């Protein structure tokens, strides 16, 4: 029954994510009955109006990375508390999906940052990779890279699970740290458009705000779906490893 429920959830979240993402793509590039497609071509200080449409992809990728790492964090604590595969396997799946989303958030952010933050006289890449929030996210990315590596390198299951949980908890610290850097550090180039301490200069129109919120919904659904797909694989891998032992 549990497997059936999970299969149903997997399929449901898949169709939901697909519909939500298609709607998001439509609304990002074309007009919808609710509003006109966001267009910055006529805005005075915007040099890359097409790249700016990453506003509906990049923050959502970062958000779903955070969701994945929060799930990993909670399951890691549970796995340390109760040393069974029950929590260890889903923690590993969430961490891997989170790492993929994290990589894409860094990738889109790097391209966007190069376009919008480049100042004459300094290297665009250097500007992006000395920004506080980017640095925090890079450290978080490296911690989860280590997490996935030691999952492959440590053979003994109990030790592997303990070590991985420690890295999962450590890596998660990047989530609150990343949220706070742009709000607390004046040096930050990241504009805060949502939440307390949002930058009044980076205000969005109502429709753009709606699209941003929608992108968060779509990528959360995508995370749920990818996590369930990865979980199915991880469970089968566990069963095969157990049978081989």
């Amino acid at each position, binding site marked *: 029954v549990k497997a059936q429920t999970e299969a149903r959830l997997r399929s449901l979240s898949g169709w939901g994510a697909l519909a939500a993402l298609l709607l998001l793509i439509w609304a990002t590039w074309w007009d919808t009955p609710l509003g006109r497609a966001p267009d910055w071509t006529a805005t005075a200080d915007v040099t890359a109006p*097409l*790249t700016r449409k990453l506003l509906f992809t990049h923050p959502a990728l970062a958000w779903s990375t955070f969701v994945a790492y929060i799930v990993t964090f909670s399951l890691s604590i549970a796995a340390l508390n109760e040393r069974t595969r029950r929590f260890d396997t889903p923690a590993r799946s969430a961490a891997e999906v989170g790492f993929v989303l994290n990589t894409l958030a860094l990738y889109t952010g790097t391209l966007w940052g*190069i376009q919008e933050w480049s100042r004459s006289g300094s290297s665009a890449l250097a500007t992006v990779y000395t920004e506080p929030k980017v640095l925090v996210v890079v450290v978080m990315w490296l911690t989860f890279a280590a997490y996935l590596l030691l999952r492959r390198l440590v053979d003994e299951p109990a030790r592997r699970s303990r070590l991985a949980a420690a890295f999962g908890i450590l890596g998660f610290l990047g989530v609150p740290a990343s949220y706070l850097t742009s709000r607390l550090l004046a040096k930050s180039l990241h504009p805060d458009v949502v939440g307390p301490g949002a930058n009044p200069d980076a205000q969005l129109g109502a429709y753009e705000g709606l699209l941003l919120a929608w992108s968060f919904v779509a990528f959360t659904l995508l995370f749920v779906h990818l996590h369930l*797909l990865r979980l*199915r694989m991880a469970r089968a891998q566990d069963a*095969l490893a157990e049978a081989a032992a």
Partner: protein
Amino acid sequence: MNHDLTTATLAFGGTAASLAAYWLWMRWRGPRLEAAAARRPPARDGPGGPP
């Protein structure tokens, strides 16, 4: 010089292609692993499986 179109294409195209590839890989690999696991006898104290 402005590379807006190139950047946007790389960013959106790269993201979509990566996510699609990851999804396809899991859709392809998951059922195969599941089938392989089902063919194996349980590790210990389990019922059934070939002798």
